[in-house]
């Protein structure tokens, strides 16, 4: 029988091909063709740093190593106007969903060392306040602990919750501001927008300062998910793609 003699060979060839693909995380297939995405994301390095590893002392957020679902969601937000940044939106404006998903997967698969955290001269009381909010929240104001969704080690939870470490202080503060003003939106119900509106300006400075000054554990990855019992409803956790 022909199949019995050829199929193991085909199987082995297939296995080798698959193994090769696994070793080459940026090669993905679009419309049946294998496409290397590294050259396709080079324009991103202009702002997000080499391979998306941005440093904490600028404004641009790191994108390397964040959960793919989260990154994909953000690219859709910029393209479709739920997050606002003109130059960022311009680049993804006329791209198809599958391409943006591949870009997200490309960056998610990277495991690059983190630089040491920014050195800030924030006073100890402020930092303590930030740390407490992150770990415990504030029940009186219906503020859940950030770790409930972002993970005990704050490195995020697959597939849609990003880590909070290694981000610039200004960037963090700007995100809470954008959520409060409606310039950043996630899927409804938008839990982060509700949380941001419950924060006082002093909370925002404390959270941004504390988070930006924490070292990132080496090989930090988002922990396996999904978030088991989110303390609030988040659209993105309900229909994680």
């Amino acid at each position, binding site marked *: 029988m022909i199949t019995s003699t050829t199929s193991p060979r085909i199987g082995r060839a297939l296995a080798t091909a698959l193994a090769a693909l696994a070793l080459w995380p940026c090669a993905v297939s679009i419309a049946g063709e294998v*496409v290397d995405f590294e050259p396709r994301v080079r*324009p991103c390095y*202009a702002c997000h740093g080499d391979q998306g590893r941005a440093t904490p002392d600028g404004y641009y957020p790191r994108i390397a190593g964040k959960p793919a679902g989260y990154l994909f969601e953000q690219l859709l937000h910029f393209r479709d106007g739920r997050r606002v940044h003109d130059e960022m939106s*311009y680049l993804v404006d*006329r791209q*198809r969903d599958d*391409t943006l998903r591949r870009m997200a997967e490309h960056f998610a698969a990277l495991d690059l060392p983190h630089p040491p955290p920014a050195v800030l001269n924030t006073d100890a009381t402020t930092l303590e306040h930030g740390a407490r909010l992150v770990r415990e929240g504030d029940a009186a104001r219906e503020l859940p602990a950030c770790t409930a969704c972002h993970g005990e080690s704050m490195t995020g939870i697959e597939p849609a919750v990003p880590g909070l470490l290694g981000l610039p202080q200004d960037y963090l503060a700007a995100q809470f501001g954008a959520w409060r003003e409606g310039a950043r939106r996630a899927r409804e119900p938008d839990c982060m927008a509700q949380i941001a509106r419950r924060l006082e300006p002093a909370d925002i400075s404390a959270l941004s300062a504390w988070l930006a000054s924490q070292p990132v554990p080496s090989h930090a990855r988002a922990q396996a998910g999904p978030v088991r019992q989110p303390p609030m409803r988040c659209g993105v956790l309900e229909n994680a793609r």
Partner: protein
Amino acid sequence: MSRPLRWLLGAVVLAAAVIALIAWRGLRVDAPHDGATPVPRIAADISDPVARGAYLARAANCRGCHSARGDEPYAGGRQIPTPFGTFRSPNITPDPETGIGKWSDTDFWHALHDGRGPDGAPLYPVFPYTHYTRVDRQDSDALFAYLRSLPPVDRKNRPHQLKFPYDQRWLLVAWRALFFRAGTFEVQADRDANWNRGAYLTQGLGHCGACHEARNALGAIVSDEDPAGGVVLDWYAPSLRASDGAGVAHWSHEQVVALLRDGVSAHGSTMGPMAEVVYESLQHLHAEDLSAMAAYLRALPQSEGESAPRVASAAHEGDKAWERGASNYAKHCADCHGDRGEGKEDPGYPALAGNRAVTMRSPVNPIRAVLYGGYAPGTAGNPAPLGMPPYHATLSDQEIAEILGYVRGSWGNAARPIASFEVTRQRTGPLW
């Protein structure tokens, strides 16, 4: 009667005559096209008028202008920058209060064909009724049926922000007298059906000339005699009738179709507003319509005049700006575009040597490419395009001018250098 008085009277009579003429020409309503000469039927195989209207709206890219990012489609609000100020497109969903819900199909026809609102007020020609006027009544009705089928969106129109005197809508009466006649599409009997189909699509629905033809100081298209492109949305849309502009007569039929459908061809790719035209409109057209457009574009008479006059390649030794340009090119650009501007085959980075987009008289497109970067549009034929990085944060205006001066003057290119103020000018305004 004393002489001065007679002069005065003469002047008054003359002025009255001119005003009457302008008013007559500017206010007249041209007899609507009765459909005596049938226009090429686009998407004739779609029998449902709403679905056919949806296709025609794609071909005319109504959605592109009438939707703001992140808002409901067709609810308006998109900013359209022009030399006269910034326009805000209106809501054309069927909401009765804020959209066009109270319009009749005849009101809509007057807008599309004759550039007038239901109250007879003239519309600004930034709405390209100057081209849509060639669309016939049957297609207009299909477009209207489609717009009526959209979910109504309650969104008040925002006022345009125009400079004086352009904010005076009544002045459009004079503008229309001088520059606009409602028209119809005339089938050219000496051309085949395919050419006529392409002409109807390109001149009418596609309104390609709204961007690709030069306008005078009052925004009227003037390039009929002398092909020149137009500045639009801060980009330069070169003439489709200039082989050193956007003319494609010397390309193969397949390459022209590829450019329109996929946004890239072997000869060049689309950027900025043209990338939007491909993404929103052209990539969705049926093969026979693309083929007809390509045939029409390839048959356009061609001339030259878009490339900057060749400047003698002076000796650049000791020219500090040139040297800085060369070394910054090597540092920032050569990786992708090649040491000698030859580009790369795999992956396909465009050559800058001998590239007409780089040596054009108007340098705004290469300046915008370097400032803001960008990708060709993602289409079925080119789903994962390569992109150009933005340099607005890392390079100064002076550095960009020097690099482009070097690029425009090297490897056989011989266009004039660029001044840094030309780069500075491109740093403001919405991105397209």
